[in-house]
C-alpha cells in the first residue's frame, strides 16, 4: 500500500454519507499517509501505526506514533496520525487538543480543521464545528469534503432549531439523541472507508473502495464495549433492599399522610399543592401531555363552588419505594356528590410519596 500514497497529499478524516438518518455525524477515518515535503525518513513507523490502527490495534498504533513524536515532536504527519488514533479510541477531547494544535501550527492545512469539526459535531457542538469547517474552506475554497460536512452541520443545526420550534418533548429528545450517538459509535467503525483526494494536487486518485473493504472486519471488533459504556445507565433503583425493607413498615403513615394531603389540597382548591402530589412521571389519563392534564385539573379545581373531598377506608400497602393505596373517595361540590373506590400507586422520591397512578376501582 505504501507506494501508492507516496505523493503530495495529506491524510484526512472523511465523513461519509450514511443511508440511515442519524443525528450525529459519525466519523470515519482514513489514514492515508502522505509525505510532507521535504520527505521524511520516518515514513515506515507511521505506516506501521496506520496499519495497526486499521486493524483496530489502537494501543500499539498510538505507541508507534508516540515513538516517532519522541524523536520529532513537531512532525505534522505523526501528530495528525495521533489525532486519528485518539479519535478512534474515543478520546475525543485529547484528539481535539491534537488537532487544535495542528491548526495553530499549520493554519494553511484544511484537514486538521475538518477533523476538528467532526469531533465537535460528535459532541454536538455544532457552532464550533461550523467555525472549524469555515476555516478549512477559507484555506481551501474548493475543499469538497469540508463543503459537504458544512452542509451536514447546517442540517444538524437546522434540526436542532426545529426541535426547539416544535418543542419535541425535550426529555425524550435527549434520550433519543443519546441512543443515536451509541448507534453511530457502533456502526461508525464498521462503515466503508471513502478516501478523498485533493483535486488541487492533480496527481493522486486513490482507489478507495477496494482498499476500504478489507479494513472493515478488524475495525468492527471492539463494538460492544463502547456501546455498553455509553448506555445512559437506566438508573437502577437504589440497591439497598435492607434499608427499603426496614422503612416499609414505617412508610405506611407517610403514605396515608400523602393521600390526606392530596385530598386536603383538592378541598382547599390549592392547585399548586394538589399538582405537587403527583410524580413527574404520573400516568395521565389517556396518556395526554402533562401540561394539558395539569391545565384541565387546574380548571376543574378552580371552579366557583366549594369542593369537599373525603377519604374513607384507607388501606395502604408499602413495598420498598412503591406503595398502593386503596380508599373510598367522597367528593362533593355544589350539587354534585359522588363516592367512588380509588386505587393509587405512589412512589417515593427524595423522601416524598408521590402519586404515579390513579384509577377508579380496586
Amino acid at each position: 500500500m505504501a507506494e501508492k500514497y507516496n505523493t503530495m497529499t495529506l491524510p484526512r478524516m472523511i465523513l461519509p454519507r450514511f443511508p440511515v438518518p442519524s443525528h450525529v455525524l459519525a466519523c470515519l477515518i482514513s489514514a492515508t499517509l502522505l509525505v510532507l515535503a521535504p520527505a521524511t525518513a520516518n515514513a515506515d513507523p507511521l505506516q506501521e501505526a496506520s496499519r495497526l490502527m486499521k486493524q483496530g490495534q489502537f494501543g500499539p498504533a498510538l505507541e508507534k506514533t508516540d515513538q516517532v513524536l519522541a524523536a520529532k515532536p513537531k512532525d505534522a504527519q505523526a501528530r495528525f496520525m495521533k489525532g486519528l488514533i485518539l479519535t478512534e479510541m474515543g478520546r475525543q477531547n485529547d484528539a481535539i487538543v491534537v488537532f487544535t494544535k495542528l491548526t495553530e501550527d499549520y493554519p494553511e492545512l484544511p484537514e486538521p480543521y475538518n477533523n476538528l469539526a467532526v469531533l465537535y459535531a460528535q459532541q454536538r457542538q455544532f457552532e464550533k464545528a461550523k467555525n472549524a469547517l469555515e476555516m478549512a474552506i477559507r484555506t481551501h475554497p474548493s475543499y469538497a469534503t469540508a463543503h459537504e460536512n458544512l452542509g451536514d452541520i447546517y442540517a444538524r443545526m437546522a434540526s436542532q432549531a426545529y426541535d426547539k420550534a416544535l418543542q419535541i418533548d425535550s426529555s425524550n429528545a435527549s434520550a433519543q439523541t443519546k441512543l443515536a450517538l451509541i448507534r453511530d459509535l457502533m456502526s461508525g467503525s464498521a462503515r466503508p472507508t471513502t478516501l478523498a483526494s485533493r483535486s488541487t494536487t492533480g496527481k493522486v486518485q486513490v482507489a478507495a473502495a477496494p482498499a476500504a473493504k478489507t479494513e472493515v472486519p478488524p475495525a468492527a471488533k471492539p463494538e460492544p464495549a463502547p456501546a455498553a459504556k455509553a448506555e445512559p445507565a437506566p438508573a437502577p433503583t437504589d440497591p439497598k433492599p435492607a434499608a427499603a425493607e426496614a422503612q416499609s413498615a414505617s412508610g405506611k403513615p407517610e403514605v396515608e399522610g400523602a393521600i390526606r394531603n392530596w385530598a386536603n389540597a383538592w378541598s382547599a382548591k390549592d392547585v399548586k399543592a394538589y399538582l405537587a402530589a403527583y410524580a413527574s412521571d404520573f400516568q395521565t389519563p389517556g396518556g395526554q401531555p402533562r401540561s394539558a392534564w395539569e391545565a384541565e385539573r387546574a380548571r376543574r379545581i378552580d371552579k366557583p363552588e366549594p369542593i369537599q373531598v373525603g377519604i374513607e377506608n384507607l388501606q395502604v400497602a408499602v413495598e420498598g419505594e412503591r406503595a398502593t393505596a386503596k380508599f373510598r373517595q367522597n367528593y362533593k361540590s355544589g350539587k354534585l356528590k359522588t363516592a367512588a373506590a380509588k386505587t393509587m400507586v405512589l412512589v417515593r422520591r427524595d423522601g416524598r410519596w408521590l402519586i404515579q397512578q390513579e384509577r377508579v376501582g380496586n
Partner: protein
Amino acid sequence: MKGSASFRHLTAALLLAAGAATFASAAEQTYSDSGPEPLLAQVFAQIEQNRLDAALAQTDKLLKAFPNFRLGHLIKGDLLLARARPLETLGNAANAPQDKLADLREEAIARLKAYRDKPLADYVPRYLLQMHPEQKYAVVVDTQKARLYLYRNEGGKPRFVADYYISHGKAGAEKLREGDKKTPVGVYHVTASLPRQKLSDFYGSGAFPINYPNEWDKRLGRNGHGIWLHGTPSDTFSRPPKASDGCVVLANQDLDALAKNLQIGTTPVIISNSIEWLSLDDWQAERAALSASIEAWRSDWESLDTGKYLSHYSQRFQSGKQDFAQWSTQKRQVNAGKQWIKVSADNVSMFRSPGKEELVVVTFDQDYRSSNLSNTMKKRQYWIKEDGAWKIVYEGGA
C-alpha cells in the same frame, strides 16, 4: 444559496398572506414595540431580499432576546437548512408534526399582520363608547387577529397605548358551553388577580379571571367558567393563535406589562371576533345618540309619566324573573304612590358588545330619591337597538 429562490417565494407568499405593504412603512411608525415583531419583520424583509446571512444573524438576535420563541427557532432552522439544501416550505422540518408547523405559520402571519396593521391613530374600537373616570384603561381583544389592544382613558376618550399578540380558544370564539374550547365574545371585566405563586407553571406569570358568563350570557343560556387572561409556561414564549381552552393567553412579559394597568373589578375586557373601528367623528355620534337616550330615560323616570318611562324598555325586557309586563305593572304601582322622583346617573360607562346584535352595556352610579324612598346603587343596563331606537333589554344591580 441554492434553496433561496423557492424559500423566498414562500416567504413572499407568507408576506402576501399578511398583506402587501412593505415593511419600510411599518418601521416609520412611532409605536414602541417590546415584542418580537420588529425583529421578525426585519428577518422576513431580509429573506425577501435574499440576504439570508443577514436574516440568520437577525434571527440569532431575535432568539437572544426571546430564547423560547418557537417561531424564531423555526425560521432559524429554515435559514440553516437553506445553506444545506433547497427549501420547499416555511418550516421545512422533515417528519415534523404538520399541525404544529401549521400553528407556527399561523403565528407568523398573525404577528406580521398585526405589526404592519397598527390601529390608525384617529380610529377607535367601536366598543369603547364611554369609559367612566375610574377606569384608567380598557382592554379590547381581536381573536381573529390574535391581538389584544390596550387603551388609556383620556377624559372619556380611548387612546391607544400598546398591543400584544395573544392566543385564544382552540375551537375559536363565541363560547356557548362548558368545555367547548372557545373564547367568549362580549363585554367583561377583570374580577381577580391570581399571582404566579398560587398557580401552576402552565399559567405563567399570573392570571386575571373575567366575569364570563355575564348577565347577557346567562340570559342566553351560555355556560362554563374559568375564562382568564393569563401567561405562558416558563419554557414557552408564546403559544399558537388557537391554543387555549377558551382563555386569552399572553406572553409573560406582555402579561406583566398589561397587569400594571389592570384594576380589579373595574378594567373592562371586551372580546371580539374582529374589532370594528370607528372614526372619531362616527364614534362621537354613536356615543352622543346613546347618551341622549339614557338621559331621556332618566328624565322620563323623574317626570312620573310611567308610560313615557316604560317606552324606553324593550318588549323583550327581562330582569331576574320579571318580564316586561310584570315590570310595567310593578313600576305603575310604585310610581302611583310618589309625589316626586329625583334620579341621577354618574360615572356612566358605555361599552358596545361585539357581535351581530346592537347591544351596549351601560353601568353607572344611580342616586334615586323620591317622596317616600331613596337609595343609591351601581346599576347595569343592557341597551339594544330596535327599529333605530335604543331600548333597555336588561336592568339590574352591578
